[in-house]
């Protein structure tokens, strides 16, 4: 009889706690979004599965000795995984559209207002009982507005590791929701005439420029913002491998095999942070709400900046491409292109929107560096 009891006590059924069941359902929800709705599936599949694994009673995936525990501490706590992903993103990024029209960097800068405004919002939430965000927490939450998954995970792992799960879930969910969140805001702040604006064709960019560009960006990070150097450095390394033309094998590995392998472990590692005690609280709700605010403000400020530049510049600028300033490459650029086509079926904005789009990646890396430098211990 006692043995039967021991056997029963070693089953999952006897040991389930309510929180674990709920978090497994959250994991299933992420899997549903990834598989049925195609929301950022590359990350949400391992993340959702990681959430299920980490909540299995007695299995101890996230305790010392468990797989997910080591995956998290080796890759995410140290910042290695997001940085490797950033190298792969660099190897996939073509800066041609940005070099051809460097003013687009201002759109990428303007869209970062979403980050800093949300920082303010996160502190304001402290007025509501139940919220206690420190400046570090607020900064890590605000970076969701950068619409850049690896940057958000990198910063959160440095500033607020206990919020990492919720921040990663919010960042990737909203990135997947860009085609739903952005168009209404873009239409709200532009009129039909502005959306129809056609832009001048971009000039040809030489290989020389593309090779020097990542080196120039790196040099600036070295001089002015060493705290952003891990992100910017890995990004520039990936981009240089792509553009220099002599290490195609390395470039191809960085943007295919390596980024795929790292994505699996990054997803699992983040999933391991989706435990009931860390996720099921009012702060998670606050983070999800703030993430949406950050995205909306970033989109708005990008569009408004583009309107301003259109007034000041001699070349016409379609304000829609300002929305692409919130990284989320290449989704945000595609959205700008789509909304532009609705207004003017002959107006292809995709290449023009890629400029602010990749500028947004640089912008959010710089913003992350600033936050690290100012509030990181």
């Amino acid at each position, binding site marked *: 009889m006692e043995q039967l009891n021991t056997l029963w006590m070693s089953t999952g059924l006897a040991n389930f706690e309510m929180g674990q069941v709920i978090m497994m359902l959250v994991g299933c929800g992420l899997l549903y979004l990834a598989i049925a709705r195609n929301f950022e599936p590359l990350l949400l599949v391992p993340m959702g599965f990681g959430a299920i694994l980490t909540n299995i009673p007695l299995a101890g995936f996230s305790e010392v000795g468990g797989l997910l525990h080591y995956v998290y501490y080796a890759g995410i706590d140290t910042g290695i995984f997001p940085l490797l992903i950033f190298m792969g993103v660099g190897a996939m990024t073509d800066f041609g559209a940005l*070099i051809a029209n*460097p*003013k687009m*960097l*201002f759109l*990428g*800068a303007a869209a*970062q*207002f979403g*980050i*800093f*405004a949300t*920082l*303010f919002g*996160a*502190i*304001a939430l*402290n*007025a509501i009982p139940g919220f206690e965000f420190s*400046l570090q927490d*607020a*900064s890590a939450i605000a970076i969701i507005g950068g619409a850049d998954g690896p940057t958000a995970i990198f910063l959160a792992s440095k500033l607020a590791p206990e919020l990492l799960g919720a921040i990663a879930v919010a960042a990737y969910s909203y990135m997947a929701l860009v085609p739903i969140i952005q168009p209404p805001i873009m239409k709200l702040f532009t009129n039909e005439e502005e959306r129809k604006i056609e832009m001048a064709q971009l000039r040809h*960019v*030489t*290989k*020389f*420029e593309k090779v*020097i*560009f990542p080196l*120039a*960006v790196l040099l*600036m990070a070295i001089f*002015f*913002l060493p705290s952003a150097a891990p992100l910017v450095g890995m990004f520039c390394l990936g981009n240089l491998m792509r553009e220099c033309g002599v290490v195609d094998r390395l470039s191809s590995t960085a943007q295919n095999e390596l980024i795929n392998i790292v994505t699996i472990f990054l997803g699992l590692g983040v999933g391991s942070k989706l435990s009931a005690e860390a996720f099921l609280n009012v702060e998670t709700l606050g983070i999800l709400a703030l993430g949406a605010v950050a995205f909306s403000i970033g989109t708005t400020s990008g569009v408004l900046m583009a309107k301003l530049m259109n007034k000041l510049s001699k070349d016409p600028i379609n304000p829609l491409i300002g929305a692409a300033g919130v990284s989320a490459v290449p989704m945000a650029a595609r959205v700008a292109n789509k909304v532009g086509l609705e207004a003017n079926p002959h107006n292809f904005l995709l290449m023009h929107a890629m400029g602010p789009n990749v*500028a947004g990646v*640089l*912008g959010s890396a*710089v*913003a992350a560096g*600033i*936050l690290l430098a*100012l*509030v990181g211990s």
Partner: protein
Amino acid sequence: MEALDQLFIEAGTLMLAGMVFVFAFLGLLVVIINAVLTPLASKFPDPVAQSVTRPTLKKPAPQQGVSPTVVAAISAAVSQYRQKHKE
């Protein structure tokens, strides 16, 4: 409440400093591209462009059909496009 006020002031300063710095950093990058990179680029044109023009200069364009260099360029572009849009 006083602590919250303090946090607000810090957040405000951070917002101001952050935006100024982001604009300054990326603005400087604009200046560098416009002032250094673009002028230099005209001194180092693409080697590919030269190698394409040279053979056509030597062989005065075979009139019938498309020249093999054009075919090569187009097929390279197509395969690159396909690779990029594989997903």
